[in-house]
């Protein structure tokens, strides 16, 4: 359970968060929609402790993230993972080293044991297979395409099976086919890890494909939040615009995939 209460954040003259409140239940996928530059990524960075709010609190599974710093903070985010918009792979390491990084640095969060080299290699292979990147182990991130980098970053995150996963614009800048693969991977990751997921995006197709609930952020607050059915019925020009900008409703496609 993630509880955000009265979150305020200002960068210079720009008030990005203005008293934002939000609850995310365990195991759900919440999609936060809104145009670029409105503070969606800033919200994610607050949840994982990369940014400190000017005011307000964030509680993740009972831990007051906003109160912690240093070692305490690092300890309490070990079960969280974040997929960055630009992938943020370590460019001095191979794909395999990137994916294995967490397990080399920390004990396995589930078993509490340090994994052997063979166990880490198994986990890395499994994660790369899951994202369809087997055979790229020895490649450097610079040798990969944008879509492959994103999938490698996803593998780096799922390898340690976090219980809370944050996606920052996962499909932005990708062609529709790769974007669809990423959407499917988000759904698959949720099923496999049974994780609570927060996806920030301005891609309505992606939002409807992966989201259990959708939220619209405006003026530093959550303007609307509802399940997809009710969300689309809200009389808001931005929601109408975002929905009209997609050529087909992904929910029908999802139904079709499920039955076919």
């Amino acid at each position: 359970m993630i509880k955000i209460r009265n979150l305020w954040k200002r960068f210079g003259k720009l008030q990005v968060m203005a008293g934002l409140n939000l609850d995310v239940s365990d195991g759900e996928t919440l999609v936060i929609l809104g145009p670029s530059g409105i503070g969606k990524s800033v919200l994610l960075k607050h949840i994982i402790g990369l940014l400190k709010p000017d005011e307000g609190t964030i509680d993740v599974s009972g831990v007051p993230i906003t109160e912690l710093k240093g070692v305490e903070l690092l300890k309490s985010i070990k079960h969280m993972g974040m997929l960055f918009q630009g992938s943020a792979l370590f460019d001095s390491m191979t794909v395999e080293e990137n994916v294995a990084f967490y397990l080399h640095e920390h004990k396995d969060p589930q078993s509490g044991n340090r994994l052997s080299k063979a166990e880490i290699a198994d986990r890395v292979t499994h994660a790369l297979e899951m994202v369809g990147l087997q055979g790229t182990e020895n490649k450097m991130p610079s040798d990969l395409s944008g879509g492959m980098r994103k999938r490698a970053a996803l593998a780096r995150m799922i390898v340690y099976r976090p219980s809370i996963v944050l996606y920052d614009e996962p499909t932005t800048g990708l062609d529709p086919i790769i974007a669809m693969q990423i959407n499917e991977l988000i759904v698959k990751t949720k099923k496999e890890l049974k994780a609570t997921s927060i996806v920030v995006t301005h891609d309505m197709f992606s939002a409807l494909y992966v989201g259990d609930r959708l939220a619209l952020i405006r003026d530093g607050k959550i303007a609307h939040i509802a399940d997809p059915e009710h969300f689309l019925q809200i009389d808001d020009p931005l929601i109408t615009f975002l929905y009209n900008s997609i050529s087909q409703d992904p929910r029908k496609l999802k139904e079709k995939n499920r039955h076919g």
Partner: protein
Amino acid sequence: MEAQTNHLTLWKKCLRQMAIVLAVGEYITLIFNVFSATLRRPPAVRLIMQQLYDIGVASLPVVAITGFSTGMVLAAQSFYQLADKGLASVTGLMVGKAMMTELGPVLTAFMVTGRVGAAMCAELGTMRVTEQIDALQTMAVNPNRYLIAPRFIAGIFMMPLLTVFSIVLGIYGGYLIAVYYFGMAPSTYFDPMPTHITHFDFMTGVIKGFVFGVQILTIACFKGMRTSGGAAGVGRSTTSSVVITYCVILLSNFFLTVALNIIHAEMYEGDS
């Protein structure tokens, strides 16, 4: 109206001064944080070894060329300036003293700033703007311990060694010129050294190497970690890191020279 504009300009100037003070505060905080993170849990030996190689071993050629050519030019210039005054015999002493106390440490520090400091600042800056440092943190890894501490430790350990290496090559370079170009006897070049070059001269070089090492590494890491603004930002912080380091080295070199000599004089007095 004009008065108001002046007032605003003055206000902006004050803010700029404040920003410098704040930056110095952040710089000291970074050093403190790295120090405490290292004490709590030292960085992996593998990471330190990698940095020892990158900073030390990989810098050997450029430091060798610097030391060697400086020694040669010092010998040549000393000989030209002193020979007609009958003082050619102090050439070796000039080279040895100058290399040990000033040119060895300062020029080595300059080369290491250009080769290591700039690269390090650009690397960390790129990691910062591409969110790799954020990614490290989201994976519960302290960037101060993982990225900065190994660089600090390796740099601070390697700079005195590189300085000594440059001093030795400088004296040897001077020797080659004095003996093989000006026809001086090897004993004339080397004989005055044991008498007139003291442990203090050598230690001056080593201490300066150490202090410059601290300055190069801390400024490069600090500027790298504070980078913002994409590729242009990386360029800006790398340039300012190098410029600031050069200025700090030159200024601190003066104060070190004076301070070390005062301390030496005190100790010498104490001895006698």
